[in-house]
């Protein structure tokens, strides 16, 4: 029983971490309808900047994470402005293909330039907090903090999407891009803003990554694939889907890993394929 509780806790905490970056990817897909294969690179860059500033100043990594948010937003914004916007007018089929090429190229490029400038070695921030112990159970405060931040972000984003005009325009663009244009939404700007937000979320995830695990310049594509799995699982473009998808994945991985670490890693892909068999558009997809 204790083990079960411990596994569920570990799974949910891990899932929350997955959900954070997947959230941003899902947002981007919803609004721009592109598969952003460079999403993991934003995560990596977020972690890297956190690492560099931490090494130089020794500030609290989460504080650094907040500090680099505007920068991450800007990065995502210009990424979209210069690389994705030219594709916006193209036909659906061509756009999907071109976006794969452009984001794949960008991912390779960002990864390699980073490894050239900052070195290819694994980087991790040494920052820890004592865990919370209750008998044999333990909950990592770091991960709990991650969960609280994710919950806070979810509420914040929900509020932003529901109440602000930009947020509403963003939702409108997701639901019917032509309709959004007809009411005067500058959809290209909304796209860029969304990319900025997605990049911000990825960089926060990157900060958690570099604190809890470690980062390296070539990790980008690997994590992108995992996040793509999560958002497909939850339904492309569905925000609640990416949250639920992340938690499902974290839970399954933890529980299966307990019996066999190998199958724990397999579980992610197995469960994705199974869910798509039952629901061709993911759990919350339309």
């Amino acid at each position, binding site marked *: 029983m204790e083990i079960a509780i411990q596994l569920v806790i570990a799974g949910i905490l*891990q899932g929350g971490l997955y959900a954070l970056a997947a959230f941003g990817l899902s947002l981007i897909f919803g609004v721009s309808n592109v598969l952003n294969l460079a999403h993991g690179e934003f995560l990596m860059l977020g972690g890297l900047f956190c690492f560099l500033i931490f090494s130089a100043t020794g500030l609290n990594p989460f504080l650094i994470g907040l500090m680099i948010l505007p920068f991450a937003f800007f990065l995502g914004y210009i990424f979209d402005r210069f690389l994705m916007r030219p594709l916006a007018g193209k036909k659906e089929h061509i756009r999907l293909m071109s976006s794969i090429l452009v984001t794949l190229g960008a991912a390779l490029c960002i990864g390699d330039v980073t*490894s050239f400038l900052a070195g290819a*070695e694994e980087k991790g921030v040494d920052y820890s907090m004592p865990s919370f112990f209750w008998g044999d159970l333990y909950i990592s405060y770091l991960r709990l903090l991650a969960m609280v931040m994710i919950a806070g972000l979810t509420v914040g984003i929900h509020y932003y999407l529901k109440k602000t005009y930009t947020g509403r325009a963003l939702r409108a663009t997701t639901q019917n891009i032509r309709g959004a244009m007809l009411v005067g939404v500058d959809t290209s700007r909304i796209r860029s803003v969304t990319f900025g937000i997605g990049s911000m979320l990825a960089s926060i995830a990157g900060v958690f990554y570099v604190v809890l695990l470690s980062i390296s310049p070539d990790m980008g594509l690997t994590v992108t694939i995992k996040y793509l799995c999560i958002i497909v699982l939850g339904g492309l473009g569905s925000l609640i889907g990416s949250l639920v998808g992340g938690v499902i994945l974290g839970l399954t991985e933890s529980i299966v890993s*307990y019996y066999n670490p*190998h199958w724990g890693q397999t579980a992610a892909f197995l469960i994705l394929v199974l869910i798509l068999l039952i629901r061709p558009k993911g759990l919350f997809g339309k």
Partner: protein
Amino acid sequence: MKRKMSVFCLVFLMAVAIIGPDLTWAEDPKEIKIGATIALSGRFKGIVGTFKTLGNEWAGLINERGGIYVKEYGKKLPIKFEIYDDASKPENARKYYEKMATDPSISFFMGPFSSFISNAATTVAGKHKIPMQMVCANDAVLFEKPNYWRVGVLVPAEDEWERLVPIYKKKGGVKTFATITMDTLHNKGAIKGFEEDLKKNGFEVVYSVVAPPPTKNFAPMIIKLRKAKPDVVCIEALSPAFTIGFLKQMREAGYKPKEIIVGHVTKHVIDALGPYAENITGLAYYYDGDTQDHKDFLEILRRSGFTWGEYMESGIRFWAYTRIKQAIEKAGTLDRKKIMDTLWNMKTKIMGLDSFVTPEGYGALGAWPCQVQGGKFVSIWPLDKAVKLHNYR
């Protein structure tokens, strides 16, 4: 139509010219060229990417002294590396070794990183009859089939951890071990040998797990680890991400073993763990107790800008370079067959240690126990050569 044809031919010729081999070579060798591929990109870049610098610095050091004396020509020849990036892929390694095999001025091959890439490379060496010395590749899979044209510098992977057991046997105080292994060829071999060694010496392995390389969530394994309560936790993983991830999560879980052993401990692992890294025991292909024969090694490390503790594998590289130099000097020629004969039969000393090749082709270089003390990596074994004494955590 004629014009189009000529344009087409021109484009084709240009393509051939771009990718074609350099068709210039001197009849009388002006230098000794050593061909190699290194993973300058791809997944091994972080581990071996910097060794290009190390090799060039070594060549620079030798050339400052005039180069390597070759009896056949009666003079010293400078040494030069020709290095391609194999992007951590065997098919690239093979392609570039084939490219270098067509260049008669290349007299010697250095192997690439890791066993399965070396596998592709040794085929080329065997086919074109070019001597190849493999570095950082010591799996049984490479030595299954006899191949005259390749030798290694390392002891088999199974023996990599053999010098650790005597420490615990002598010191006592620990009884039970747990091993966490990343699922790759080399790591599994090393741990297999270690576990057999432990059992032979009366220790107990209470938990043993092999996890795939991309594992990020170690919590389920740590739950089991906490139940098994081992005195010593051993992590053997080629990927530092695996090691760092596991240790950070073990710290989160509050499990405090008496001893942590990390097979591949590098500067970045130590940095990422901060004070927690203190007293982690590891292995390096070098010991710093006796410095009389190490001057060259320390010099090229200094020039390359890293300390030996940053890269446990720097020692392998130096060992391999030195063996090449010794073999050429001893053979007194650049004749490939003679160099290869010499490599098989040569018994010399490098860094104060015996250097030879076993009948299967393994080398003689083994790993030495070290420990992180005061943020630095210091030799702790064998006792007569140790700089510091081994501590439990």
